[in-house]
């Protein structure tokens, strides 16, 4: 069984004054594909390295398959890992790189050859098995690093940004292959990426980290539809959710740059109970339509991202007669394009408004689950 559990796992690097990972609590089921996502420096690699046993845990525990492995050496944890910077064995051929763990594990030669051959084929490395890493491109090296993990049959796969150096086409293709392979092998996989599209397309569940703290764990749909806080709302989605900070609340509405958005009664109750006078309003680009003049949130168009069938209009918010720096995105379909410099009115679709607390950043729409 390859289920994984972090319990209050904390890592503070010697000589640093903050916790790279702070009290991480996370359960990963056997056979699950879990993606750890977050901006650079948020502690993704550190979390993975704690699970691998390459980084000591200052407090808390890590367990694999129900066993507390906090004090186990990496080789006793039955894991395979793809390193962010490949970490290939420079003096060994591609084939030997992949076969190394099997040799150490005393796997018979025939089986070794077969497993390495299969991985090489899967990763399109058949023509390169005799080469050393020096004579490979960045993308090929990354695939060797991948292959070195795939030839094994561990309890858990750990992958640290394994696709970051592939070109766009190969990345999409390999992404699909990894997902398919993982479903077939049913091996628990913890996959690190900073690319939220990768996270959303690959993960059974996604865990969002920011500055060492776990923000939310859930299925891609959950994260997208009900982000727990402002950070997750802005991070998940491409383009991210449009956020209007410090929107004043009066009566039953919040004022977004002159446009009044009605708030439900239980939201108003929560705002009142934390003594706030403002909220953060979040609107997804696809939940905005172009309204007629004067109806909606006024924006000055600064750019248009053409995607063929539809397009994103990017505009700057007009607040009290001034342009604000934050960019707003609206998804438009058909022929509804606008000229740069013109003013448009973004009208929110009722019932699709996200409301967050100004004070805590937490979601106010529905009662908190924790």
């Amino acid at each position, binding site marked *: 069984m390859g289920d994984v559990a972090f319990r209050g796992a904390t890592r503070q690097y010697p000589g640093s004054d903050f916790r790279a990972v702070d009290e991480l609590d996370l359960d990963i089921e056997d056979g699950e594909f879990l993606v750890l996502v977050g901006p650079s420096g948020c502690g993704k690699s550190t979390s993975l390295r704690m699970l691998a046993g390459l980084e000591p845990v200052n407090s808390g525990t890590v367990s694999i398959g129900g066993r507390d492995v906090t004090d186990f050496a990496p080789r006793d944890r039955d894991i395979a890992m793809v390193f962010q*910077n490949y970490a290939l064995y420079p003096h060994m051929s591609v084939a030997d790189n992949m076969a190394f763990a099997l040799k150490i594990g005393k796997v018979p030669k025939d089986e070794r050859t077969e497993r390495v051959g299969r991985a090489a084929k899967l990763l399109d490395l058949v023509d390169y098995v005799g080469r050393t890493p020096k004579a490979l491109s960045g993308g090929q090296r990354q695939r060797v690093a991948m292959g070195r993990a795939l030839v094994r049959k561990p309890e858990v796969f750990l992958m640290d940004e394994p696709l970051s150096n592939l070109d766009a086409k190969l990345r999409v293709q390999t992404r699909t292959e990894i997902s398919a392979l993982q479903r077939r092998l049913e091996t628990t996989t913890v996959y690190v990426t900073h690319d939220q599209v990768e996270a959303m397309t690959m993960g059974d569940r996604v865990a969002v980290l920011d500055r060492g703290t776990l923000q939310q764990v859930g299925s891609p749909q959950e994260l997208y539809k009900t982000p727990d806080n402002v950070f997750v709302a802005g991070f998940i989605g491409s383009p991210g959710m449009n956020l209007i900070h410090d929107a004043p609340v009066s009566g039953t509405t919040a004022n977004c740059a002159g446009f009044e958005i009605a708030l439900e009664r239980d939201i108003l109750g929560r705002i009142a109970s934390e003594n706030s006078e403002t909220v953060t309003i979040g609107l997804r680009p696809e939940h905005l339509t172009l309204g007629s003049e004067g109806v909606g949130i006024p924006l000055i168009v600064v750019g248009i991202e053409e995607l063929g069938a539809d397009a994103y209009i990017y505009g700057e918010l007009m607040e009290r007669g001034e342009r604000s720096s934050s960019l707003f995105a609206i998804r438009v379909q058909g022929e509804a394009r606008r000229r740069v410099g013109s003013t448009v009115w973004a009208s929110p679709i009722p019932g699709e408004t996200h409301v967050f607390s100004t004070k805590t950043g937490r979601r106010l729409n529905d009662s908190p689950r924790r």
Partner: protein
Amino acid sequence: MTDRKPGSNRKARVVGLVALSILAVVFLTPVYVMVVASVKPPNQADAIYMWQLPESLETSGIEQAWAKLKPNFVNSLLLVLPATIISSTIGALNGFIFAKMPFRGSNVLFASLLLGMFIPYQVVLIPIVRFLQYVNLYGSISGLILVHVVYGIPITTLIFRNYYEQIPSEILEASQVDGATPFQAFTRLMLPLSLPGFVVAGIFQFTNIWNDFIFGITVIPDPAKQPITVALNNLSGTLSIEWNAVMAGALIAAIPTALVYVVLGKYFVQGLTSGSVK
């Protein structure tokens, strides 16, 4: 020139070349005298004819010197090869531990180990003799090997630690995840990547041990067991011997170290770890 490198300055390079050539001549002058004297007949190998090229090639000096020095030459080989290999291997192991498996207090231990390099030999001569007598190795080549191995550990450890320092730690982490024990990581990853380290440590140790005189004469009183440096000194002290033979002896004693530089120097391989990490 067709492929000048950016920023290279022709004038500076000419000046550099001239300066290096002058220095080379200065350093090679004694070697020149040694080489020509060793192939001269005895009567021409003296201060007056010192600078002249030999009129005819005469091998009697070389033959005479070789006859006298051959047993000691063999002694030196029996001493220097094991001592170099053993001290380099211990240095590699130590260097691996200090560079890649630090433990509490390892920095202090490393610093105190390095202090060993600054102890002048004169200070330890008497303790060495007493110790070797105590363990019954006094007067033997094995005893001298032991002395050189121990005396070489600080420098070989330093060489290998610095060399291993630049091997990316990630490949060791990868090997740990792949199931390797620290010892397997050493034998299967570090050792195969250590050729440049062994070349540097090997040249250093070979040269130092081969050229050593003071340990040799202190530890081994029996002329038949002494290394060539001591025997060469005995040779020049003998009245009956001519200068051409002494010079030939010096030449013979110098050849192995020169050979080591020429042969091993080729293996100063660069970039052994390239392609390993981003």
